[in-house]
């Protein structure tokens, strides 16, 4: 007889971040961007107590959680934390947890929804190893608790019932006896059947609030009134219709290792060994018909930092990979002899599909250019580091130094770039191509009728264009109150300067190079 366990980690994205930060008391609000702008996706119970709700505009949430929140007097202050939601990382971390749970069952998986929060485990026959089903469920919950996660778990004959009882059951840990799904489900609300909100609303409007009342209705009338989904979910929960569950499988790690008889310091020898290990690793990848996306090279017997390489595109090009390794090794400092080298695959990718054609195809040329660019970025990353290979992304901030954000190229756009409408372009064209890292003080002299200077740094001004008034940044602390001018000097230089309206001092901020 099949037995299934559901492990639900409520507010999984919040729990994940709390465990990462090690701080549980800070009100945490996660937000995402949509057509309506930034809105809250999920929040911690501390934030919910302040009135934050999912779907709320972020600005409204910020207003409800201003500055700091004091729980008790003479206690540390807990600043509210606003973070951009990262569903991919949430899923990846839940997958890691699923693989961890393979010690309780060989068949473990994530619930099949876009933002999963639950794990399923097929525990058929495993309970004897833990002293029964109660022993198994308690051991698992204690294990997750040690990792800092709070979970609710339930065991039943079907995944649907286990899910319903874990989410809506009275206890944090429940075991539904075999063949008693109907009794366990009867008292639970209809939302426990994993239905769409519109169907649940329709059921509530007819005063069908529990599954028990729903099961009393004639089955033939349900599909025409509420759609086929309702009957399918009910049958899945009762076990009359099977439900397919995707399994998470841990992949055998790919690695290659070579140990030396004596510690080696010669770089040429190490480079040769890297070439040999890389060939072995690529051979293993070729057997699986996959490409290399990220790998790590460890220097055994030394404290030298391991070489980590993440590629822009998956590849199996040995020449390219060896070149990247050489670029990294140039920067490595070996304090003592290397006793061995170990190369491990961290992430694999699908190999690029190449369809050979008889005649030249424009798409082929575009693909070649893309490949050349990816190889260039990989090389630049290897030598300069990813913090030096950047892509600009405009932000809708009027303060010039905050109007652009530079993000590493491989990560692409962390935030979607602010689209510049054509009306803004001429405005941006008045910006200089060179902006100083910090405004430099200017010495001005003379005064026109308008109160503007006639000389700057002992050079006469032939033309002044402006002002462009910028008042912003009050939420960053010091309020930026500036009047920007373009100053054309007699010797031909074009300056972008501003007068600070707080102090009246002039500063050079950019050059029209």
């Amino acid at each position, binding site marked *: 007889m099949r037995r299934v366990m559901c492990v639900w980690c409520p507010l999984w994205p919040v729990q994940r971040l709390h465990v990462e930060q090690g701080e549980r008391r800070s009100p945490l609000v996660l937000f995402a961007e949509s057509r309506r702008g930034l809105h809250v996706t999920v929040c911690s119970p501390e934030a919910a107590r302040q009135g934050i709700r999912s779907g709320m505009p972020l600005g409204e949430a910020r207003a409800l959680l201003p500055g700091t929140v004091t729980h008790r007097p003479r206690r540390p202050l807990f600043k509210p934390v606003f973070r951009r939601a990262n569903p991919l990382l949430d899923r990846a971390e839940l997958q890691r947890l699923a693989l961890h749970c393979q010690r309780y069952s060989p068949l473990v998986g994530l619930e099949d929804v876009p933002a999963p929060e639950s794990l399923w485990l097929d525990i058929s026959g495993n309970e004897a190893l833990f002293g029964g089903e109660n022993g198994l469920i308690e051991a698992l919950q204690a294990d997750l608790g040690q990792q800092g996660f709070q979970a609710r778990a339930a065991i039943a004959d079907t995944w649907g019932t286990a899910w319903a009882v874990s989410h809506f059951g009275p206890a944090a840990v429940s075991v539904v006896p075999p063949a008693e799904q109907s009794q366990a489900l009867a008292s639970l609300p209809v939302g426990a059947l994993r239905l769409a909100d519109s169907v649940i609303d329709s059921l509530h409007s007819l005063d069908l609030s529990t599954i028990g009342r729903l099961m009393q209705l004639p089955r033939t009338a349900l599909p025409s009134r509420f759609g086929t989904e309702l009957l399918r979910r009910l049958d899945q929960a009762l076990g009359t219709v099977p439900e397919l569950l995707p399994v998470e499988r841990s992949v055998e790690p790919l690695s290659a290792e070579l140990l030396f008889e004596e510690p080696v310091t010669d770089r040429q020898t190490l480079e040769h060994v890297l070439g040999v290990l890389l060939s072995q690793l690529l051979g293993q990848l070729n057997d699986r018909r996959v490409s290399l996306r990220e790998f790590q090279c460890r220097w055994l017997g030394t404290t030298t930092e391991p070489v980590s390489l993440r590629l822009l595109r998956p590849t199996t090009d040995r020449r390219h990979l060896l070149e990247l390794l050489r670029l990294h090794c140039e920067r490595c400092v070996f304090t003592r002899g290397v006793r061995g080298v170990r190369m491990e695959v961290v992430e694999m990718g699908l190999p690029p599909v190449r369809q050979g054609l008889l005649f030249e195809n424009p798409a082929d040329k575009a693909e070649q250019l893309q490949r050349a660019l990816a190889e260039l970025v990989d090389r630049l990353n290897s030598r300069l580091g990813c913090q030096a290979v950047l892509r600009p992304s405009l932000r809708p901030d009027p303060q010039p130094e905050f109007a652009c954000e530079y993000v590493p190229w491989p990560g692409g756009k962390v935030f979607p770039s602010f689209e510049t409408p054509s009306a803004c372009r001429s405005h941006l064209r008045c910006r200089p191509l060179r902006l100083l890292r910090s405004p430099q003080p200017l010495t001005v002299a003379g005064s026109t009728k308008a109160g503007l200077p006639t000389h700057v740094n002992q050079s006469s001004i032939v033309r002044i264009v402006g002002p462009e008034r910028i008042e912003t940044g009050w939420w960053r602390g010091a309020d930026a109150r500036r009047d920007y001018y373009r100053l054309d000097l007699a*010797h031909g230089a074009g300056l972008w300067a501003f007068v600070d309206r707080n102090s009246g001092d002039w500063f050079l901020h950019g050059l029209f190079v």
Partner: protein
Amino acid sequence: MQNNEQRTQTLQALRQLCRNTTSLTPADERSRLSTGIPALDGLLPGRGMEYGSLVEWLVSVDGSGAASLAMQGIRPALEHRAVWAVVDPAGEFYAPAVAGWGISLDSLLLLRPTSIADTAWTVEQCLRCAAVGVTWIQMETLPDRVLQRWKIAAETGGGVGVLFRPARTRRQSSWADIRWLVEPQTDATTAGRRVRVELVTCRRSFAGGSVELDVNDAAGDVRLVSAEADSTTAARAAGA
């Protein structure tokens, strides 16, 4: 008398020889890359730059507008290859100004090396890459050997290297195919800035031509300053 005729014929023959050397076929002209400024294109053989060229802008004053002139050529270059690599060791390149010129920031690859050796290596890698249309670099001191390597890299990659150097390096030898000298002109009557651009060096052609241009950053255009009419002709017509 005969000597004079022979001299004239010899000069004509030499002129024709020079024209044959520098003139290009229509196919060659199509394969040229525009500077984005017709007046500057007119000074170049084939009305444009060759692919794989190294272009040097000699700047007499910091902030004279040479970059605004060079920016005009970015868009034509990116039509063929979509990546514009900006090597910015100082970390002062301001990308929003680029968006103002109508160039997509998606095409911008901004590189910030921290040492001179890394900068030279980075520029060479970008010039050698077939996907990069323009490599943009501002450096004051450069060993001659580095420029030679960049030139070879540009020829290999087929993109264009745009280099900004101080005007005092004009007398130094350079491996650049085209060298422009930008000198600001004082004229408070125009809306923008007036600069004089001189073609200092042009490989496989004669240098020496110059034009005066009005650069209007706000409008985003560069216009040729029309030459003033000869006042003596008008005076003669008036019978003076």
